[in-house]
């Protein structure tokens, strides 16, 4: 079969190339990687939230037949390994002093600081022997007082987790003009304040984390297969900072990865521990996290408590916004953890709305909980929740219409380009047009009838909106490398990392579309430090923006070289050679040459002009974006609420996204749907709960509620495509995170709209049936 893609691959509904492999059980996920003579590893995790390790006795475990190695903090100290550094983009307190970064070792040394922290690694001939050995290791702990909630952690007298961090504060932060904000507040008619919680969640990818480490004693080189989203940067940290073996001695590969959502972004302890073990044992070592361990040890997301204040005039004009947040970091600095509640949540404050001034402050404390790191959106969902909740709350308090309040305050298209009060470069877009398109898509005219039908069932119906403003992130550079093989296959290697979202399709689509080659000829490679010299992995909705631009750039360069080869053959000036649908042609002549002819010609010097070398069409190029792009859009949601039980059903969902150019609408739809599903999950049911002693209460899928397919509404998705950005070659704005940036406020706004007749104007997420029912009871009792 040969599939050709038109229009340089842009706008084509190309089906996913990877799905046949995934859906027929032929993917290579981390547990499918098995090496000859491999040993197995398991981790002994701390049962204590905060305790001194007074002794570890592994002698019985070591005596067990088949146990090869037990690694503890003492071994780590003796080896002199380095710590795992944080790469947070914000590193200084408001007063300029350095953030408090405690030493994060791959294994607990002398003290544990959260339940689930690795205390020992067991390596044995089989997993069953590992399990037996874990039960034989005796660890004595001297318990210390623990603190799990960020608001408690910063109080005087709270248990201190790190000596270097008084009141457990790792970092504080500000952005915006405080004086201007105060002035705007002083001049405004109303100031509305809302305290809200952005609940703690976990990514729960369908494939748990895992890794296989190998060591080649002959060369001194290590190889690590790792279910990771970010292999280049993490290779550097693991090899250079921690193990100190030099990054050239670590080949880091991510095979097919079954979901990441940020939870597989950071550097984790276990892959480092098994690299050490593989080096010690001179044989491969495999480790796979189980689901229960995943809840304990995968970095969590969100977890902010905030106070939001909106200052507005009597006519509804927004004047100022003031947000104060406290974002939980867990027991250590995650790989970019401290950035999330500080810089991450600050940049999109104010959303697509016009303000005289905005001032944002944050405190990021340590607690005795699993470290936090980015989770799909990494701070922007928190910002959009703050913005779109305060609008509806203010509207309710002041008797205004939340739809009209938005309509009135959206930044007019004529104001773009602009720099937002948070310093964001908003180059293009049309927020009022997106808003009206969203309203139109959501069938406002039919609402009254739907509401009537809902009420006939004894239920309440509500409608909620969110107008989100997003920004992309992650590394600014990406490499795309193309090699034409003698067997006709085209190897395309890109430094981004797909965890299932379809890079194998969209990047091939761009290359095939540009060159006029069939999709099937392209063989995609990613997430391998040998395949590309650099790579920014996955995160910040950067895949298409940076990786897709790199593929496009490389494609164009290949065509230019091909044009010279064609010009050489036809003995004309290269400027006279056209290229269209895979064919070079000299207009007005019968001189044509296919791209395949040019590829076949490229290895013979006789076919080449003097300035080209054999292999000249095998091109690697690096694209670097200057400024991050600004995706934006409107979400509209309808819910049915059962007032007798508090049950919420999302009964309709409409979204219009401005992602700039849409390269593959099916993949974009998939990103939006998945993001909305996670947003609905956070809004209605997902919640990581620690008790006061630091034990994880939601340690399994029996207690952590994940949304299921039948919790999802039908989603109607539209795009606003009249504002491609000039910040990258493709004109795209990142699509990966937007769904869960917009969904939580849209859902909560809809529920509050349904319950406004009771006087319910805010409920903290997740909106579980009991919380909704209780809010109704409390409101009834008050009135």
């Amino acid at each position, binding site marked *: 079969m040969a599939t050709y893609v038109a229009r340089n691959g842009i706008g084509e509904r190309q089906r996913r190339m990877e799905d046949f492999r995934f859906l027929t059980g032929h993917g290579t996920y981390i547990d499918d990687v098995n090496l000859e003579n491999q040993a197995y590893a398991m981790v002994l995790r701390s049962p204590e939230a905060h305790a001194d390790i007074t002794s570890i006795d592994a002698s019985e475990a070591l005596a067990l037949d088949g146990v090869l190695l037990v690694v503890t903090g003492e071994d780590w100290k003796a080896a002199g390994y380095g710590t795992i550094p944080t790469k947070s983009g914000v590193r200084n307190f408001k007063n300029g002093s350095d953030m408090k970064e405690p030493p994060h070792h791959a294994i607990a040394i002398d003290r544990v600081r959260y339940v689930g922290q690795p205390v020992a690694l067991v390596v044995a001939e089989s997993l*069953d022997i590992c399990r037996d050995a874990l039960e034989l290791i005796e660890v004595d702990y001297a318990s210390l007082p623990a603190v799990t909630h960020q608001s408690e952690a910063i109080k005087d007298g709270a248990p201190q987790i790190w000596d270097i961090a008084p009141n457990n504060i790792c970092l504080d932060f500000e952005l915006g003009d405080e004086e201007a904000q105060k002035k705007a507040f002083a001049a405004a008619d109303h100031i509305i304040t809302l305290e809200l919680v952005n609940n703690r969640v976990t990514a729960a990818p369908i494939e748990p984390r895992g890794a296989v480490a190998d060591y080649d004693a002959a060369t001194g080189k290590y190889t690590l297969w790792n279910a990771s989203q970010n292999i280049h940067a993490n290779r550097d940290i693991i090899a250079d900072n921690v193990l100190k073996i030099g990054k050239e001695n670590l080949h880091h590969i991510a095979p097919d990865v079954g979901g990441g959502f940020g939870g597989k972004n950071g550097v984790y302890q276990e892959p480092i521990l098994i690299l050490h073990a593989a080096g010690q044992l001179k044989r491969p070592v495999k480790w796979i996290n189980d689901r229960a361990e995943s809840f304990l040890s995968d970095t969590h997301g969100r977890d902010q408590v905030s106070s939001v204040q909106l200052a507005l005039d009597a006519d509804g004009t927004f004047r100022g916004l003031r947000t104060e947040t406290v974002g939980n970091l867990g027991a250590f600095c995650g790989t970019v953890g401290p950035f999330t509640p500080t810089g991450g949540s600050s940049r999109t404050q104010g959303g697509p709305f016009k303000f005289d001034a905005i001032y944002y402050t944050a405190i990021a404390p340590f607690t005795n909980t699993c470290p936090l790191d980015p989770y799909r959106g990494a701070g922007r969902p928190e910002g959009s929740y703050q913005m779109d909740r305060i609008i509806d709350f203010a509207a309710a308090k002041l008797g205004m219409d939340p739809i009209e309040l938005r309509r009135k305050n959206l930044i007019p298209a004529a104001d773009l380009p602009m720099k937002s009060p948070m310093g964001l470069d908003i180059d293009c877009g049309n927020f009022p047009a997106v808003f009206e398109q969203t309203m139109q898509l959501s069938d406002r005219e039919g609402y009254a009838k739907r509401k009537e039908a809902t009420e006939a069932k004894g239920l309440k119906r509500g409608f909620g909106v969110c107008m989100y403003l997003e920004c992309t992130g992650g590394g600014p550079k990406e490499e795309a490398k193309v090699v034409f093989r003698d067997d006709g296959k085209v190897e395309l290697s890109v430094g981004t990392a797909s965890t299932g979202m379809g890079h194998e399709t969209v990047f091939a689509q761009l290359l095939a579309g540009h060159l006029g080659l069939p999709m099937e000829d392209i063989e995609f490679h990613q997430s391998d430090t040998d395949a590309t010299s650099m790579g920014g992995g996955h995160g910040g909705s950067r895949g298409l923006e940076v990786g897709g631009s790199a593929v496009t750039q490389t494609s164009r360069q290949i065509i230019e070289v091909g044009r010279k080869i064609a010009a050489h053959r036809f003995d004309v000036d290269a400027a006279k050679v056209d290229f269209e649908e895979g064919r070079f042609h000299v207009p007005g002549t019968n001189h044509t040459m296919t791209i395949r002819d040019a590829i076949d010609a490229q290895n013979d010097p006789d076919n080449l002009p003097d300035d080209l070398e054999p292999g000249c069409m095998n091109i690697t190029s690096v694209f670097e974006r200057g400024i991050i792009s600004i995706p934006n859009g409107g979400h509209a949601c309808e819910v049915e609420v059962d007032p007798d039980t508090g049950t919420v059903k999302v009964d309709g969902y409409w979204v219009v996204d401005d992602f700039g150019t849409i390269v593959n609408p099916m993949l974009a739809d998939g990103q939006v749907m998945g993001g909305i599903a996670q947003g609905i999950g956070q809004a209605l*049911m997902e919640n990581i709960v620690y008790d006061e002693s630091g034990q994880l209460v939601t340690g399994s899928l029996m207690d952590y509620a994940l949304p299921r397919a039948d919790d999802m509404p039908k989603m109607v998705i539209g795009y606003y495509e009249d504002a491609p950005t000039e910040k990258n070659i493709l004109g795209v704005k990142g699509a990966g995170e937007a769904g869960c940036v917009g969904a939580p406020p849209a859902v909560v706004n809809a529920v509050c709209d349904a319950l406004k007749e009771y006087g319910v104007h805010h409920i903290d997420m997740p909106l*579980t*049936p009991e919380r909704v029912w209780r809010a109704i009871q409390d409101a009834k009792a008050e009135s």
Partner: protein
Amino acid sequence: MYDFGIKSPGSVDDVKAALAEAEDGQFLAGGQTLIPVLKQRLAMPSDLISLGRVEALSGIQAGGDSISIKAMTTHATVAANNDVKSAIPALAKLAGGIGDPHVRNRGTIGGSVANNDPAADYPAAVLGLGATVITTEREIDADNFFTGMFDTSLKEGELITEIVFPIPESAGYIKFPNPATRYALVGVMVAKIGNTVRVAVTGAGPCVFRVAEMEQALTASFSPDSIKDGLVAADDLNNDIHASRDYRAHLIGVLARRAVAEACA
């Protein structure tokens, strides 16, 4: 899992013999609870005695005034059975709402009832419909069967062979699923049998229980309005991250009314 042996006898007598021979044997029915428990190393039986090959333990028989379901009958079979669907539709509905398709095609009525999980559905059916549990030793009334959390009056080595449900005049079952597990956060079975009404509640307490106040009110008048709020005290109900005891107490009233409405429909 720890190591264990497995035996698959073909008759009830051979099952008994296998258990007697085993050092610390355990019956394996559908395995939907036991296998996860073993995987987590929370149990260490010497031998599993699988009941899957005992043909006499499987099947559904409809009589004039009762339906007998053999212990190894799967939830999916009960849900799809035409006799059950026409005689006790609430029971078919209950079975069709347990777990997911995988669970329903492996899990069995005998296994579920013997396990007596406080959030399981079947105990509400057995108690609410006033069924009789028949074992290798005797017949046990539903009212004397469920004795506490994960506890029943079954003796060591006693095996459920079938459960006999009297056919009620009408019955309704409403379950409020736990959003995480989809077990019953609260489930209420209401049945009108002759002149009596039985109301059984699962999920809300440590063990399935009847609500005498509701039964009396419904015996007087079988209508949703007969059930007033506050008939169940919250004190002894379950209290966890999914639902407080007060909320569970409230749900019992709401669901009981809906179950009566379903029974009346």
